[in-house]
Each structure stands twice: as structure tokens, then as C-alpha cells.
């Protein structure tokens, strides 16, 4: 949730309204998004509203462009929570990419989008023209988008603005990579993620979550790694209760 709004183009505007749309309702593309102003503020200036993903301004109206549930965050942030498996690169998002080719000064990285992204040799911590990073074709990298729009080829970097790696870079050996939906990834990355907390209670493991739906897991034994991978793939559509019972069953069984 946090990373998503940094990269979405937000629009500010003044809203006039009739119908009440309660937060938590399912909206379909084409619905006009509007909400009721609290009576106390009708005299003063209309307040600003921030529209997140799934909402789009069209002249004086705001239209819903993705089907999903309307969510609200105080004080004035609204967005549509939709399900999707296909990733569209967004600026500032951290993703797990697979190196597919080395050409000239850049690596070609597959991030699951429609185009392959480019990652420069020099975009690693401590890399210079003489000191090249040790990256092979087929390796996994955890990196961030600096350019990601529909008109240009996406570009990745493995350093932040200060030049430090900050957790990004090439993966070590071992572990398993698998794919989940984008909604699950966002839930895992949320600040107080219940799924992450439930998973932590099982057994120790390392996990890297990419915003493109790719998750890398490494645990002490292969069996444990497989368990975590299968649990994450299956707990997508479960309610919290079902998920907790499942995790408990597995924890009892594996011990």
C-alpha cells in the first residue's frame, strides 16, 4: 500500500456531490465516484480529495476505471482495491527481476511486464568501470525503478539516491522463486501485515517480496521452503480465520 501511492499520479480537485458511496462497496468501471459532504462544512470551501489507483478524473467527475472495493484512508485518500496478476512497472517500486542478457553496458532484466527493463552496470553499490558487478545471466536482482512510464523503456537501479545498496542487489544462491497475485504482495508489504505475522510464527526463513508479484523464499531445509511457498500461493483467497487454521495445522504437522 505504501509504495503504491508514491508512484501513482495523484489528482486534486474540488468535488460536488449527491449520492453516498460507502467505503467498502464494490464499484465497477464507469461508475461515477462521489460522496456526501458532511453538512457542517457546506459553507466553507470544498475540501481536496486525493484519488489513488483505480479512480480517474474526467472533467468535473471522478470515474472508476477498475473494478474492486472502495477503500478510504484518513483524512482524504480514496482508492480502489482490485485484483490483478499482471504487473505494470511503476516508478519507485522495488521488484525482483531475472537477468536475461548482457549487452554493452547494461543488463536486460525481465520484470514480468510487457517490456524488459534495463539495468546499468554502474548502478550497483561500489561499481566502477574497472570494478564490474558479479552478475550472470539467470541471476535474480532486487532493484528499484527510476523510469517507468508507458512511453519509455523501464530502467532499474540497485542503489538509492545516496549511492548505498540499501538491501538491493544480486541474490545469493539457494531459495525458491514463485509468483503470486499483486494484491497478495501488497498485503504482505503493508506495515501491519497479518499474513506476515502469521508466517513468522511458523519457522525462520528469509523472504524477499517484489512488487511485480514475485516472491523469493529461503529456509533451512528444502521441505520448509516448499511449505512456505505453497502456503503463500494458497492463502490468497482465504479469510483470516481460514488462513490461521491452515497455518496452525501445518505448524502442528511439521513439528
Amino acid at each position: 500500500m505504501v509504495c503504491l501511492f508514491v508512484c501513482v499520479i495523484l489528482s486534486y480537485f474540488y468535488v460536488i456531490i449527491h449520492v453516498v458511496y460507502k467505503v467498502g462497496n464494490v464499484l465497477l468501471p464507469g461508475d461515477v465516484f462521489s460522496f456526501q459532504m458532511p453538512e457542517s462544512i457546506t459553507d466553507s470551501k470544498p475540501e481536496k480529495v486525493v484519488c489513488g489507483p483505480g479512480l480517474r478524473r474526467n472533467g468535473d467527475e471522478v470515474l472508476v476505471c477498475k473494478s474492486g472495493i472502495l477503500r478510504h484512508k484518513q483524512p482524504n485518500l480514496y482508492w480502489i482495491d482490485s485484483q490483478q496478476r499482471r504487473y505494470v512497472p511503476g516508478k519507485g517500486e522495488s521488484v525482483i527481476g531475472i537477468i536475461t542478457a548482457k549487452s554493452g553496458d547494461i543488463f536486460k532484466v525481465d520484470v514480468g511486464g510487457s517490456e524488459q527493463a534495463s539495468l546499468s552496470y554502474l548502478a550497483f553499490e561500489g561499481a566502477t568501470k574497472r570494478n564490474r558487478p558479479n552478475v550472470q545471466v539467470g541471476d535474480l536482482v532486487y532493484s528499484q525503478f527510476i523510469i517507468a512510464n508507458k512511453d519509455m523503456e523501464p530502467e532499474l537501479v540497485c542503489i538509492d539516491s545516496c549511492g548505498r545498496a540499501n538491501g538491493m542487489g544480486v541474490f545469493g544462491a539457494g531459495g525458491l522463486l514463485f509468483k503470486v497475485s499483486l494484491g497478495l504482495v501488497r498485503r504482505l508489504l503493508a506495515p501491519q501485515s497479518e499474513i506476515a505475522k502469521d508466517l513468522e510464527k511458523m519457522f525462520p526463513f528469509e523472504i524477499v517480496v517484489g512488487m511485480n508479484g514475485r516472491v523469493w523464499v529461503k529456509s533451512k531445509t528444502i521441505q520448509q521452503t516448499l511449505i512456505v511457498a505453497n502456503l503463500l500461493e494458497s492463502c490468497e483467497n482465504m479469510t483470516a480465520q481460514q488462513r490461521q487454521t491452515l497455518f496452525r495445522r501445518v505448524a502442528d504437522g511439521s513439528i
Partner: protein
Amino acid sequence: MRDTPLSNCERDFLLKAIQEKKRLDGRQTYDYRSIKISFGTDYGCCFVDLGKTRIMAQVSCELITPKENRPNEGLIFFNIELSPMASPAFEMGRQSELLVKLNRQLERCLRNSKCIDTESLCVVSGEKVWQIRVDVHLLNHDGNLMDAASIAAIAALCHFRRPDVGIQGEEVTVYSTEERDPIPLSIYHMPICVSFSFFQQGTYLLVDPCEREERVMDGLLMIAMNKHREICSIQSSGGIMLLKDQVLRCSKIASVKVSEITELINKALENDKKARKTGGKFGFAESLPQERITALKTDVSHVEMSDVKEKANEIVQRAEVPPQTVPSPVLTAPGTGQVGEGLENSWGLKEEEEEEEEDETVELKMELEEGHEEKGRGDVVVISDSDSEEEDVVILNQVTTK
């Protein structure tokens, strides 16, 4: 579109897991994924789900002239299509190696094994025979296409019914489905392919590889067998060296699997026949499970209806009086009429230009009226419209009707 490349980390993990006899989805070495067979409403349409791999087969028939050297035998034609829906690696229209391999394998398995009695497909020897055409479409690729394709093809052939044919002397009548019940094909046996994938130069073996396992395998052994333990075809690809006892062991495993799968197909056919006979619902739509996602479910929300009536009344009262429509054409004088431009529009929409025009026309009308009064019985009246192309419309011989 390019397929997602396999990363080194996945490859290493898969090989290590196979060495420890662990598979990604928790299966054992010789386990098949769950097979689901369902039939469509037409005879000869079959869907097969092998785990997430999904294949559809459709059988159809038509009358054609037979081959010259075999005038008594009908023809069977197989066609597998890999649609881009199945995997981003498949492109429409391109003959990839995989496609050729699958087609050839299916033909060898079903045609060369003579599982269908082609002589029963003959109608008039040398002139008319039935050609049975099996179209297999791949809908989702999650490994082991050959097995799923062979199951789908043979199940569809068993399910298919061809139209009945009557011969009276020289005349041949093909009866439609309504006139006479269609007849099933005569099938001797059901050959089914079983795939074995080998890893680490033949050390490790897995039955029914999924897509990721297929990517890291060294070679593939495919055995087509029927439930009477007759081998219909064997093919080994990938260039691995296999020992004799390995191949024998595989054939024993295959016979066990084939008998299980044959039973499954027969059960599915029975269920479908029963459903059709009792008039129950059958077909693909019925066999889809009701998959409900409850995590995002919301409760029934009530629509506020309490003040709808008052609001409606309010709106009606506040609404403006509809604009008076000017009867068209306006008769300004006998013999002349005015239609269209210059008149007040009856649409009810006020555009800015029209508002200005209204003011103008109001002024003009006032002037006109004054003019009328002054002129009284004038012979000539000038009507000037703000928009008309003609500068002035002059009406001659006007007789006031007042």
C-alpha cells in the same frame, strides 16, 4: 511475447529438491496430478484438466471420397493447436518444434495403433467414406501436454456419435440427429500416453512433470499403452541414455497408470450417458465447480428508499416549464412559411449562442411588431434573421390577417 526465463536459482532449487525426492506441489515420484474429464453438450466435445494444464478436444465428421489404395477405409485426421492463451511462449500461426512433435506423437499413438475401426466408417466403397477429424486445443500449459492431449482425444472419440446412414440400393441417405439416433464409433481399445521425465542423466525419474520440472529435465520418455498392457508407441526425446531395466520399469509403471486413467475415462463417459438419459443437465457449464471467493465478500447493503418520493416530487416541482414549441412551419404570409433556423428550438437545451440569439430575436420581434403597427397594411415585410445566409427575406404582397 517471450516466456519468463528460468532463473538459475529456480533451476538449482528444483534439481536439489528432486534429489531429495521432493516435488514442488508435494506429489510423490509416481503420482499424477488430479485429472478431471468433462464433456460438452455436443457429442464429441471433451475438456480435460490435468492439474492446471487444460485441453479441449472436439471430434467432427464429414463424408469424402476415400484414398485410391484403400477404398474401404475411412480416414482420421488429427490436429493439435497451441493457442497463445496457453502460454506466452506460443505464437499463433507459427509451426514450432513442439507443435510438430505433439502432432506426430498423437498420430502415432492413435492412428498407427488402429484403435478405431476404419472399415466401419465406409459408406459406399470407393466413393463415400467418413472422415473423422479430431481437433485438440491447448487452453493452458502447465506441463505434460502429451498425456493430457491423448486423454482428451480418446475420450472425445469415445463420446462422439456419427450420423446414421441408410443405403437402399443405389441411394444413400444420411439421417440427421432428429430422425435417427447417431451411432458411436467402434473403438477397439483406448491407448493413453504416459510421460516420464529424467533428471541428472537418468538418475532421477518423475512421472507427469509440471511446467517448471519440464524446463529443467534432461530427457523425456513417452509410452503409449492400453489397458490390456499392449504398448502402442514408445518415444524417447532429449538424447538421454536409458538402461534396459529402466525402460522396463517405466513400462510397468505406465500399465498401472493407464488402467487407472482408463477407468476414470469410462466413469466419466458413464456419468455423461446417465445424465443425458435421465434428462438431467449435462455439458461443460454444469461441470464447472462453483468457486466462490469469500475474502472480499460484502454484506447485503440496503438502498435508502425513505425519501425517494419527496425528492422526486421536489424535482418535478422545481423543473422548468417545458419550452413552448413553435408550430412548424410558421406561416408568415399565405404562400410562405418559415421552417428551422430563426425559430425557437424545441429541444429544451439552452446553448450560449442560442441565449444570445434569443435576446437578439426578442429584440427583433419587438422591432417587427412595432414595424407592423407602423406599417399596418404594408405590402412589404422584411424579416431579418441573425444567422440566415440571405441578408433579408422580403415577403411581397403580404396581407395582414388581423
